């Protein structure tokens, strides 16, 4: 059993505190993704779990054992680095077997373990090459192979795909997910790419400025964002946010436009309260192009400023109360700029946030 527990983890460099008391429980065999913009403390947190950074405060436990003062080699973890960190002077086989050799395992066992890892990752043909003779994707696989040969308690991934091109990234993403299904292990994965986070994670941990903003399954954070930061960070395109004031069961925006308070928020807002109205492009569509069974809707007339055809759908850019918003047209037809469309907003998927703090008004 290798659950990872963080208790009030603090990291500071001198007087500068970069991680402010993080609490996180990662279950055995869970795939957890730490995601956030650069500088949010996600990599630092991962490096503290690895033992590469000293913990300034709090407690880290792996499999119930507090590891704060243990060196990396005593934690039974392995890590895949952003730039692979393969040993350039060793062949693929030597790279894969290095940890076992250091541990003093017999050569026969090392060969067996490296061959096994090579088979899982399709590296068998490259065993005698050095890292310099491999492509980016192959290096990435060697880095993962090096991590799996030792059967660690926890896998740590530090932005492993950010050096790959878009196509290879998608491909490796699938491989990482398959790998997790094959070698059941606890995984902590750091990325700034919300698509990676959504597709890979059992549970997403969204971080900002050294704090955890929200923790939940990909669908939870997508459908019930805790605040406007999560709402705009998760999902593409980002959620539309328009400021307004609650007035008689509706939210009134500048320019005398109004939308009904979404069902989930009725009774949770007061007359005159200043709120931010949020909805995703997926839930705003021209009438006649709507999906069926989308529940309660509100109608708005929008002037289209720009249309971006993507093939299966077209992104429509428009303006609501002076704020640029995006909608989607499914089963698209050509749309001209300046065209006026009557659109439907699926209210079940709309959100209200506090205009001051940005926190969701759901709870």
């Amino acid at each position, binding site marked *: 059993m290798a659950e990872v527990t963080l208790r009030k983890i603090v990291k500071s460099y001198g007087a500068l505190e970069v991680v402010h008391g993080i609490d996180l429980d990662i279950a055995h065999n869970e795939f957890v993704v730490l995601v956030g913009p650069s500088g949010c403390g996600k990599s630092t947190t991962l490096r503290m779990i690895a033992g590469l950074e000293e913990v300034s405060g709090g407690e880290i436990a792996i499999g119930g054992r507090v590891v704060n003062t243990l*060196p990396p080699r005593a934690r039974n973890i392995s*890590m895949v680095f952003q*730039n692979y*960190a393969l040993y*350039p002077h060793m062949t693929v086989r030597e790279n894969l077997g290095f940890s076992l050799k*250091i541990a003093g395992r017999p050569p026969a066992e090392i060969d067996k373990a490296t061959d096994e890892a090579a088979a899982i990752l399709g590296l068998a043909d490259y065993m005698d090459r050095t890292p310099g003779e491999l492509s980016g994707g192959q290096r990435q696989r060697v880095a993962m192979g090096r991590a799996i040969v030792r059967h660690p308690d926890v896998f740590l991934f530090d932005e492993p795909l950010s050096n790959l091109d878009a196509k290879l990234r998608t491909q490796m993403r699938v491989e990482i997910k398959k790998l997790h299904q094959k070698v059941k292990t606890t995984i902590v994965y750091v990325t700034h790419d919300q698509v990676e986070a959504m597709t890979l994670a059992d549970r997403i941990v969204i971080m900002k400025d050294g704090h955890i903003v929200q923790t939940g399954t990909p669908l939870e954070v997508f459908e019930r964002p805790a605040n406007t930061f999560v709402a705009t960070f998760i999902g593409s395109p980002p959620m539309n946010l328009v400021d307004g004031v609650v007035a008689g069961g509706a939210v009134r925006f500048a320019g005398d436009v109004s939308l009904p308070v979404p069902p989930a928020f009725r009774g949770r807002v007061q007359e005159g309260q200043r709120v931010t109205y949020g909805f995703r492009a997926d839930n705003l569509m021209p009438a006649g192009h709507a999906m069926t069974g989308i529940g309660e809707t509100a109608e708005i007339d929008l002037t289209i400023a720009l249309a971006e055809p993507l093939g299966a759908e077209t992104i429509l850019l428009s303006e609501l109360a002076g704020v640029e918003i995006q909608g989607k047209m499914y089963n698209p037809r050509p749309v001209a700029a300046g065209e006026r469309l009557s659109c439907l907003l699926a209210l079940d998927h709309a959100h209200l946030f506090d205009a001051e703090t940005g926190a969701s008004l759901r709870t």
Partner: protein
Amino acid sequence: MSRAMKDRLIWAVTFLVMLIICLPGLWVVLSAFRTNGEILTKPAVWIPQNLTLDNFRAIFGLGENVLAIPVGSYFLNSLVISVTSTVLAVVIGMSGGYAFARHRFPGKSGAFLWLMLSRTVPGIALSLPLFILWSWIGLIDTKLGVIVVYTAINVPFTVWLTEGFFRQVPRDLSEAAQIDGCTPWQAFWKVEFPLARSGIASAGIFAFLTSWNEYALASQLTRSTDSKTLPVGLMDFTAQFTIDWAGMCAMAVIIIIPALILTFLVQKHLIAGLTFGGVKG
């Protein structure tokens, strides 16, 4: 101009430049096989009339005329002093280079600047203070005295060269090795050291050649066969009124040979080291 012509021209120019650079050296080698009479003839005899090994026989005490110069002792002194000071300079310099490349500590840039500035002082300018200090503590005319001086001369350069190489080795590699189960010490020897090897090798060669060829300071600090090195021993060929040019040249050839062999052996590393250093600035 055709490609072949251009190539030939480049070769011709290269040959000319190399000739100018190498001529004094070639003249020394040539003179080592000639008699003093032929060397001193005026006008000069450009093409040697008869070559002889007598000068080398004399040095090694094999011929009829045996020189009263203890070449064996000088050679041994040179070897002991050069090897010891090189090993010390590489060990100390490598540790320093690694520390400068990897760790943050107060006064780091100042310390590095001081080390580099120490190289701007011509060694000979220190000969008088060194002589006085060494005579106080009894290091004059000892191998140890020379070893200490040569080590001090070589450490700054070794620090500078290896620092660049260690900086080039990504920090991630050491971290990956530690996660793979290495102690920091193992990570250094198994990953970082092999990757910086060409830099360390070239630093070692430079240190060795500096020590092997140094004359100015050694001529002040050494007195007898206990400590005199080969370059200092060259002066034994000068008497009050005569200079044995042929013997001196033969001895110079003997001095050059080990350095030459060493340079050829590690040429590959040396080139990697030098070009790297050039890029690194």
